[in-house]
Structure formats: C-alpha cells, structure tokens
C-alpha cells in the first residue's frame, strides 16, 4: 500500500485496452490472408456496418441485464416489430422511396425509423409491466416468460401480416456503392456505420456525462446502493428497457433494409447473434457490446470469404475463444 496525501488526485482506474486492440489486430492479421487490399477494405467496411447494426440491437439487452439482472429472451421480438412497422410506412410512399433523391428518400426513411422506435418502445413498456415486473429476481421465470412473449409476438406478426416474406427495397439513392479506386463500398453500409457510430457516441455521452448515466452505471454496479440513496431504480430500469426496445426496433429497420426483406423469423435468427455479442462483451457493458458486435461481424465476413463452411459455426468458436480468455466476457462490469 502506498500512502496517499489528501491533496493527491484520485488514482485513475486502469484502462483495459486489450479488448479494443482485438478487432484491430484481427483486421490487420486478415490483410495477408485475404490477399487483395481492395477486397480486404470492402470486407472490413461490410463487417463494420454489420457490427454497428448488431450493436444497435444488442445494446439495450446488455444494459437491461446489467441494470436489473433481467434475462430478456424476447428481445428479438422488438427487432421484428420495428421492421414490420417500417414496412407500413414504406408501402404507401413507395414512389418517394424509389425517387432518386436522397432528401426525399430520407423524408420517408427517418419517419419510418422514428415510428418503429416509438412502437417498439411502447411495446417495451407493456412487456416490462406485464411480463417482467411480476418475475423480478427469478431468472428461470424470466426466461420462461420472455420466451412465451417471443412466441406470442411472433405469432401475432404472422397473424397480422401473413407468413410470407415482405420485400423491403432499399431507397434508390442508397443503392449502389461509392467507388474509390478499385474499392467498392456500398452506400447503405456507410449510412449504417454512421448511424451506429452516432448511437454508440450518444449512449456513451449519456452514460458518462449525465446524472442519469451516472445512476445507470451505478445501478449496474450495485443496485441496492443506488436504491439506498433514494433513487427509484425501477423507474430508471423501465426507461432503460424502453430505450433498449426502441433501439432494437431501429436495428430491426436497418437490418430489414440491409437484407431488403422482412420476416417474423428474423427475430429468432438475430436473437442468437445478439446473445453471442452480449456474452462476448460481458453482460452490462456497452463498450464490450460494441467490440463484441464488431468482432462477430468480422468473423462472419472474413470467415465467410476465406472458409465459407466455417462461417456456420464461427460465432460459437469466437464465443468459446473469448470466454476461454475472459470467462465473464471482455469487460466484466457486474459483480454477479
């Protein structure tokens, strides 16, 4: 123990940068393996875009768990709901979507995304009150309840929209690629990256620069202590849950545009992906979630290019590798 004088600044917490270096190192290692630099750039851009979309969907889940110890297996439902709501806006404005003007396109896209977020967020409110409130602190029942919620949500979507795949064409001005030399980067991926980065920065600012964020971070670390200081953590949690649901809805819209189609089963497929990301990142950690999402996307893209057969199990291999290194995920923020 070293003596600390009262006037000394508080010792700074150590910055753990190994996880941040991981995706960078992975990308660099891939340069010689992929061979052509232009292919590598395209793949890297694709992974970053996909990673950002996954991050947007997963960020809510990780905070919900971190803050309230709630395992939400129905998170995928918000994604699907968001995507379906967007099709509702897209259908009547098909002409504006196909107009070759970025402004006109965005005038449809932005309200669609906002409406999706609003509906997903409202659904989050209902789910939290009806399904999760009665089973606080009981993991088994939480898993059962939210799984039941997922079934009901998926089946309701089928009942309302029918079981067919709904096409969701990309707006005209977002199609095609930017060509830089012999590198082609799809325009939509650039947009996805920008939105993802904006969401990440916004979450980081709220968490690190506001009182609300301070309370959320404190709640993740020690719930009882925050309650003992007189804050109503349940209300805080409800807010986080609704925000997370809304972000999942936004992610759903973006994913639907990325795949150019909407189907209720997208919630199943993405749930697994999101879980892998959240586990890799460490439950409750936004930074870990961000890195995890990029890692998962990188492994999927590079893996799909180099060894297509391996891509099927690449997520699991990545998860095993990370958990062997750090059994509680990249950043273990909760004490549980």
């Amino acid at each position, binding site marked *: 123990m070293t003596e600390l004088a009262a006037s000394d600044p508080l010792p700074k917490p150590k910055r753990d940068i190994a996880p941040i270096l991981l995706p960078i190192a992975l990308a660099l290692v891939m340069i010689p393996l992929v061979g052509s630099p232009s292919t590598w750039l395209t793949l890297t851009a694709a992974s970053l875009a996909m990673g950002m979309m996954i991050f947007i969907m997963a960020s809510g889940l990780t905070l919900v768990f971190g803050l309230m110890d709630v*395992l939400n*297996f129905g998170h995928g439902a918000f994604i699907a709901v968001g995507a379906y709501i967007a099709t509702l806006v897209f259908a009547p404005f098909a002409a504006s979507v196909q107009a070759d003007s970025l402004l006109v396109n965005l005038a449809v896209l932005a309200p669609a995304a906002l409406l999706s977020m609003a509906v997903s967020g409202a659904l989050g409110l209902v789910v939290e009150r009806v*399904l999760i409130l*009665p*089973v606080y602190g*009981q*993991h*088994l*029942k939480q*898993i*059962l*309840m939210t*799984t*039941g*919620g997922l*079934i*009901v949500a998926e*089946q*309701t979507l*089928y*009942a*309302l929209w*029918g*079981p067919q795949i709904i096409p969701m064409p990309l707006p005209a001005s977002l199609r095609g690629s930017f060509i830089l030399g012999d590198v082609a980067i799809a325009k939509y991926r650039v947009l996805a990256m920008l939105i993802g980065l904006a969401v990440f920065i916004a979450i980081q600012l709220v968490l690190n620069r506001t009182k609300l964020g301070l309370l959320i971070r404190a709640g993740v670390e020690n719930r009882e202590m925050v309650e003992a200081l007189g804050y109503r953590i349940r209300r805080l949690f409800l807010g986080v849950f609704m925000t997370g649901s809304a972000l999942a809805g936004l992610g759903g819209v973006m994913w639907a545009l990325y795949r150019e189609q909407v189907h209720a089963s997208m919630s*199943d497929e993405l*749930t*697994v992906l999101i*879980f*892998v990301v*959240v*586990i890799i990142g460490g*439950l409750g950690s936004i930074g870990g979630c961000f890195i995890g999402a990029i890692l998962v996307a990188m492994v999927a893209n590079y893996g799909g290019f180099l060894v297509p*057969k391996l891509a*099927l*199990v690449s*997520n*699991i291999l990545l*998860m*095993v590798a990370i*958990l*062997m290194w750090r*059994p*509680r995920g990249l950043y273990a923020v909760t004490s*549980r």
Partner: protein
Amino acid sequence: MMILSGDPPRSRVLTLILVVIILALAATPFLFPGAKALNVAAKICVFAALVASYDLLLGYTGSVSFAHTMFYGIGSYAIAITLYGMGPNWAAVATGIVVGLPLAALLALAIGLFSLRVAAIFFAMITLAVASAFQVLASQLSWLTGGEDGRSFQLPELLRPGTVLISKNLFGFEINGRILTFYLVFAVSALMILALLRVVNSPFGRVLQAIRENRFRAEALGFRTVFHLTYANCLAALVAAGAGILNALWLRYAGPDTSLSFSIMLDILLMVVIGGMGTIYGAIIGATIFILAQNYLQSLMGVASKAASEAGLPLLPGLLHPDRWLLWLGLLFIASVYFFPSGVVGRLRHGGGKNAASSH
C-alpha cells in the same frame, strides 16, 4: 411402489388421469382405429420421455437449456444415418444406438464443462447458440444428413407394417410390424420415464433439488455441484437421444423439422411448464395435452376461423387460423407461468400454486 421409486402421484385425481392416459395409450391400436390415432399415441410416448428428461434439467436442477432438441436430433439422425447407410438390418440399429448415445453424452459433457467455467447465467444463452449452430450444421452437411430433406429409411423386416405377426382371424385384430413398433416405442419410453423417476428420487436427485434451491448452500454442504450438474446434463442428454431414436424409428425418417428445429424446443418448454416442473409425471400430462391440442385443436380452430370470417369479423379469422395455434399456446404458457407455475400436477397435488416447483 418399487416401480415408481417410492414417488407415487400423491393425488387421487392425478392418479386417475395418469392411469387413463397410460391405458388409453396402451390400447390405442385396438381402441382407436386408423393411422392418425396411432401416430398421435406414439408421438405422446416419445415426447413424454423427452419432456421428462428435460424436466430433470429444468425442474430438478433449475437450469434452462435450449440445446435439448440437439440431443434429440443426435439420436434421430444417428439411427437414420446408420439405417440409411447400412441398410435395414438390426446391426444398423445397434450401430446407431452405440454411436448416438455416447455422442450425445459427450457433447453434453463438453457443454456442461464449458458453461460451468463461465458465469452460470450464460448457460441458457450458450446452449441456445450451440443448438442453433448445430441445426445449421445438420442442414448444411447434406452428404451425411440429407440436408433440409432429411433421411428416409427402411426399418428391419420385423418392424415393417407388411409383416403380419398374428393374423386377423385369431383375435379379430391384426398384429403387424407397425403395431409391434408402437409397443416398442411405448415400452422403451415407459422404461426411460421410470428410470428418470428413479434418478430424481435417489440421493443424487435430492442433491439436484438442493442445488436448485440454493447452489451456494449445496456447495457448502460439501457436494461437488459441478459434478452433479454435469452428470444431470449427461443423463438428460442420454434420455433425449433415446427418445430421438424412438422418434426416428417410428417416423422412418429424420430431418431438421421433425428432430432439430427450435420450435420443438419451445414445444418441450411448453409441455414441461403446463404439465408441472419438477414432477416427472407432469411430462406425461404436458405431452398428452399439448400433442392432443396440436393434432385436434387445429381442426377446431379451422372451423372457428371459418365461422369468424363468414361473420365478417376483422382480425379474428387471422388469429384463429389453424396455423396460429401456437399463439394461443404461447398465451397459455405465459398464463401458466403467472397463475400456476407448478403446472397441472402441482395444482392437483397441492390444490393451489403455493408450492411452486422452482422459482430461481
């Protein structure tokens, strides 16, 4: 009492229901003519065993695994691939069993050891991820598994429908290979359920319950919880693979939709919760209710949907469409977690939801 391992149903109504179900299943070939009734009865038997093995995990150790269909699928595919590759003989059946069961147990061991290294809370998520990867793998390795089409195969001579064992003029019923297969399924399922009953009522089973209630305390009492949980995982996987073998033998087919899909996992979860967690008997009741609903409720819903659309009601025809029956079961599922978490069996035993099987 010996055969039930000293754990009788402990409720008159429950005993009556169980006896009726078991007698009805046993007498299905004679009571209910037609292929559909026999199929439903065989499916109930297979699923009762499968759900009972899941109950060992969910109800007795309190851990939620989403990889149970994976073991079920391993059993199904093992028997399908060997019978498909080696031809319809008993050596192929034996090979399938000898390969399938240890494979399932080994995989369960690997998952158990791996997820015990990481935080316990990850277990459900990790099993979900592993199971989905396995499902993709099975549909992609088409040279081995037949891909999305699965594998159809022929059974050994003795079990084929064309084999007449006792002709019709002896008892008035024809006993053929199909009925023999049904009784094979029935008997092996019953044996597996009785074996599980034995396991949960052994000292080992008591330790599992202790771990469910409070893992920390169980560890403090000197039990190696890691060993117990992994062992329970392997046992459950073995029985699940056994049920998978029976399922493949009955269907003469193994494919992603009948043995691996995520919807089967949800079905199992629904059956356990509706029947009653931590009771084993709940598996029989849950499987019976669920599969009867699956096979007969749908036609009822079809009628209701038609009536609703003829009456010109909005929304209802879509919600009542036979394909949406899972919606109603999902609601029933949520309602049962809410109102009677101990399921049908718990309700009958205690007359209320007070003694929930598990709440952690």
